[in-house]
């Protein structure tokens, strides 16, 4: 790693903060996707379909 | 009352109109055809979607599927309908007369004068009372008076007889008869019997709860 000079703390915390937020953003996006997919699968497993998909109600 | 044609011949048609709230489908699709001078009574259990159907016809709620059209009315002529819902739109702090006057001005008037309309619904003695003091039935009567001060061809009434006494039930019958005589259309959701002048004036549509 190169020497970041006297303000290393600021630089490192800036990059760390960005990394943290980006990671949280990605994590949240994936988590949300996973959760929604699970709920969808759950519902379909229970035999609930959309009108057009299922036999006429 | 003898029939007198006042409104242009107007009819309401709906094909496979599916109503719903917030994406929730309510009941089955309905087909409607309401001819000039006739009434349609909506019936059905609580939560069947009567209010929702009326709101859809009023253009407030979007239909989920299907469509409806009002034949014989040019949108440029101005608003075509009166909606009379569960909420009376009566302002406390204004007197009964001021309330009605406001609606006469905002809806364009052209019908009965305010004092006459109040007399019709039996509120003439209370014209100067603060409308916030009205009893439930009196508030309803004031809401009905609004229909009289500005004539419009289509009335959408949601439980017009709610909170009314026996006399009030007869009043609603008379008001609807008057509107039909003038060639107007009435669509009313109701749990009570509404007695109209002729037997063939009204058809009934019973909504069911979702299948």
């Amino acid at each position, binding site marked *: *790693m*190169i*020497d*970041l*000079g*006297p*303000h*290393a703390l*600021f*630089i490192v*915390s*800036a*990059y760390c*903060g*960005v990394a943290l*937020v*980006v990671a949280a*953003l*990605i994590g949240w*996006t*994936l988590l*949300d*996707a996973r959760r*929604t*997919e699970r*709920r*969808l699968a759950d*519902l*379909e497993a*229970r035999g*609930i*379909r*959309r009108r057009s998909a299922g036999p006429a109600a | 009352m003898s029939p007198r044609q006042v409104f242009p011949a107007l009819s309401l048609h709906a094909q496979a109109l*599916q109503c719903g*709230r*917030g*994406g*929730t*489908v309510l009941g089955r699709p309905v087909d409607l055809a309401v001819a000039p001078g006739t009434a349609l009574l909506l019936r059905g259990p609580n939560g069947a979607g009567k209010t929702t159907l009326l709101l859809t016809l009023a*253009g407030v709620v*979007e*239909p*989920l*599927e*299907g*469509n*409806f*059209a*009002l*034949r*014989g*009315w*040019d*949108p440029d002529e101005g608003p075509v309908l009166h909606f009379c819902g569960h909420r009376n739109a009566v302002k406390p702090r204004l007197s009964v007369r001021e309330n009605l006057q406001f609606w006469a001005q905002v809806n364009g008037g052209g019908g009965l004068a305010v004092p006459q309309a109040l007399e019709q619904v039996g509120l003439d003695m209370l014209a100067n009372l603060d409308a916030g003091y009205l009893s439930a039935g009196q508030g309803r009567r004031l809401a009905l008076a609004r229909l009289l001060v500005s004539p419009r061809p289509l009335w959408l009434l949601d439980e017009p007889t709610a909170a009314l006494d026996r006399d009030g039930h007869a009043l609603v019958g008379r008001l609807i008869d008057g509107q039909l005589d003038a060639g107007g259309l009435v669509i009313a959701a109701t749990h009570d019997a509404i007695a109209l002048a002729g037997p063939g004036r009204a058809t009934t549509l019973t909504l069911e*709860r*979702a*299948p």
Partner: protein
Amino acid sequence: MSAMTVVSAPKQRWWNRIAHPGQFVAWTRPLLWPLVLCTALLFAVGLWFAFFNSPQDYQMGDTVRIMYVHVPTAWLSQFVYATMAVSALGSLVWRHPLADVAMKAAAPLGASFTALALFTGSLWGRPTWGTFWEWDGRMTSTLVLLFIYLGIIALWRAFDDQLRGARVIAVFTLVGAVNIPIIKFSVDWWSTLHQPASVFRADGPRMPGSILTPLFVMFFAFTFLFITLQLKSMHTEIKRRRVMSLERRAVQGAADA
């Protein structure tokens, strides 16, 4: 038939079939992995440049490296809003469900990037200007932008009928879009009135290439990150809507049983 108005449920027209939510998910799903790869690659290259292959600035020293995260996030904070505003237009004029979805998915992303721009900016400000916060025009207007984003997010959470909500929020987004330039302008004008414009600013064009390269790479990296996340969130949102309507049907089905 003389005059009549037909009120009908919104129809899917032929030309927006590829933008039909279901179709959209189907044809954009294969794009996701390439986008992820692209983003990762760009970040790797960009970070390498940023730390190992770029010089110190003659005036700011190593703190210039903050720029490689600051400027892209600041740019995205505005770009995302523009995306939202275009979607809002689509949602109001064409009533397209996909526009609603895009609008909703972008809001948290935009808010995050704006927060990051503020965060990195104030960390940069401390060593260069000596304070974390200055009521400077750019900083201030970015802060205001953050509040607008947060307001939009709060609105989305407050509406539970998302269809109804979408059009209302679209109105607000567009009002905001018109207003943001005014805010920017007024804030610039305001701070120059009260305090001498003495703060140092590196002008883009005058930057040496060795700084520009990592900046551009990082810039694309963040933009691709946004596109990837946006796409994924849109897929999720489309699925969520399906889930919600199915759940409602489930409740109704139970009601008959």
